[in-house]
């Protein structure tokens, strides 16, 4: 199968969908003429014109607000928020408006919006350009949350997100943009709400989100050498969360590590862990281990940032807790 980058996969998804459905528009800062700071939207304006690919001022509130209005008016906007950090500027629009519109209108409104964004942890961008906080959005009923880790998933999930009739926050990882992966030429979609078992195993379940999936795979390879067979699961969508796939694995292995880039306190790992406790307590033969970012803002210094981040070694070290011996 052909290999393409994460960015190319995203771009293909958008292009294919835009061809399929004239109601789709793209808006955001420098998404048009420049093609997006990370080139995800490159070529779109040439192909679909300025009517459908709109460069906005530096106005995150207006980007999301306009997307909301366009959706209420029957369009299907894909809005880009350049860095996840900037989503905070538009949080009223995302959480208090968009996510609640349908409910508080008694089901009258439909808000098909995709908000694409990326977090830059791992690229020496410092405290204000590296934040990853999916837990805030999953804590806000009314919006779905997607966080792919491979080009294949990115394409299939983005296509499904665009076809959704509900708001979707689509979180990309900047450091994954240039990673490559197999993506078929033929059209496909991946439904939201289906976790993926990236690697089969029997001794321990590793659940890893977004960028951390690759770290989990690396860790599982090391474990394999030591005779420990890890099952690696990517939830892929956080809302809806496919807890069943996770539970089946946990019931088999009895051991769990959850890995994600957010700060531990009230992170996505807290919730996944608790759902496991609530539904498979009796199957656990050790405490659930969470590997996350430490309780600090992200330091700029590339060396310190590296120490800050989750990696395979931290995962391995975490797992030792679970096995009770040095691996």
């Amino acid at each position, binding site marked *: 199968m052909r290999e393409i980058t994460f960015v190319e996969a995203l771009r293909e998804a958008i292009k294919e969908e835009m061809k399929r459905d004239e109601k789709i528009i793209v808006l955001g800062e420098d998404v048009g003429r420049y093609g997006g700071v990370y080139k995800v939207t490159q070529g779109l304006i040439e192909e679909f014109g300025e009517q459908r690919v709109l460069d*906005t001022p530096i106005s995150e509130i*207006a980007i999301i607000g306009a997307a909301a209005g*366009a959706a209420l008016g029957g369009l299907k906007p894909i809005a880009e928020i350049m860095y996840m950090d900037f989503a905070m500027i538009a949080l009223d629009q995302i959480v208090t*408006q968009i996510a609640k519109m349908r409910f508080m209108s008694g089901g009258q409104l439909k808000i098909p919006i995709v908000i694409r964004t990326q977090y830059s942890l791992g690229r020496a961008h410092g405290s204000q350009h590296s934040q990853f906080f999916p837990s805030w959005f999953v804590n806000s009923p009314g919006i779905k949350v997607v966080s792919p880790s491979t080009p294949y998933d990115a394409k299939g999930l983005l296509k499904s997100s665009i076809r959704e009739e509900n708001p979707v926050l689509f979180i990309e990882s900047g450091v994954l943009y240039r990673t490559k992966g197999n993506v078929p030429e033929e059209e496909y979609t991946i439904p939201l709400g289906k976790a993926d078992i990236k690697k089969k195993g029997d001794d321990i379940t590793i659940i890893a989100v977004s960028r951390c999936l690759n770290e989990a795979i690396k860790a599982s390879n090391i474990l394999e050498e030591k005779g420990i067979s890890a099952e690696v699961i990517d939830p892929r969508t956080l809302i809806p969360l496919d807890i069943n796939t996770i539970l089946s694995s946990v019931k088999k292995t009895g051991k769990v590590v959850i890995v994600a880039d957010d700060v531990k306190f009230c992170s996505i790992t807290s919730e996944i862990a608790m759902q496991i406790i609530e539904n498979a307590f009796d199957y656990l033969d050790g405490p659930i281990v969470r590997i996350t970012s430490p309780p600090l803002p992200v330091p700029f210094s590339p060396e310190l940032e590296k120490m800050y981040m989750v990696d395979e070694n931290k995962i391995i070290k975490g797992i030792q807790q679970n096995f009770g011996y040095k691996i």
Partner: protein
Amino acid sequence: MEIKNIPLNELDVEPINLLKKMLQIRKFEEKIEELFLVKGTLIGPAHLYLGQEAIAVGICSALKKDDYVITSYRCHGHAIAKGVNIKKLMAEMFGKETGTCKGLGGSMHAAISPEDGLIYATAIVGSQIPIAAGLALSNKYLNRKIATVCFFGDGAVNTGAFHEGMNLASLWKLPVLYVCENNLYAEFTHITRSLSSKSIAERAASYNMKVFIVDGNDVISVYKVAKDCIEKIRNLNGPIFIEARTYRMKGHGVYDQAKYRDPNEVNEWLQRDPIRIFKEKLIKEKLLDEEGYKKLEREVINEVEDAVRFAEESKVLEFNELEKLVYFEK
């Protein structure tokens, strides 16, 4: 753009219908006030439209049914002016399943009724302004001759959402009519203590859009400006801004006694009750007499009473229906 001074009997709308709409709002709001303060039937926040009726009626009478209206929590007037079923509106105040929003929105969101062109009503000051730009974008993109009207108050002008929305609407030449109902107060704060600009109109003009100032207590003036603006808006050629100057007859919310206002200021404005002014004008021009007015008033009061009965008799939605309303399911 000059607004011509057309005689009442040459208007393309029945003056009596304007009066009736205003009365509907007036009586509806007075009933709401009673239900909160006297009967104690209703609870939660409610922001009355008393005194501002000429704006909603003047603007919405210039709209077609499928034109878009988006507004704030102070939305009952816009809903009625745009033609929502008063029973549904009342039921929403009661939180009943027969309400516009099945009782999930309440007073602050009661003006959501897309079948009436009432697209959205928000409780976050200013948040409707960029959303309105997006509605207009959809109309422009789809080449629909639909106008979008966005209502908000003087206080909203100081929000970041206002700024970003206005800039975008102007930059992209979006077909939206922004109507700022300047009632001089944002909650308990007079506009002079919140707005640095010389006027709202001046602030709006700095976004390079056409701006009109209109007497918001004169329904005919409002209607005429609106009519002209909406025509232009339908040609999809950029936003227009109206600052309609008016006054809240009562407090910010239904419980507010509004004692922070200068009694002279209050009295002066009460003299300018938009309904009395218009009624007297119609009587003077012999388009109405006292008896006709009384009859109209009774009619409207009955309508409101019916609505209350309807609301009272309606049921509350089953709690387990709620989970189906969070996401759209095919």
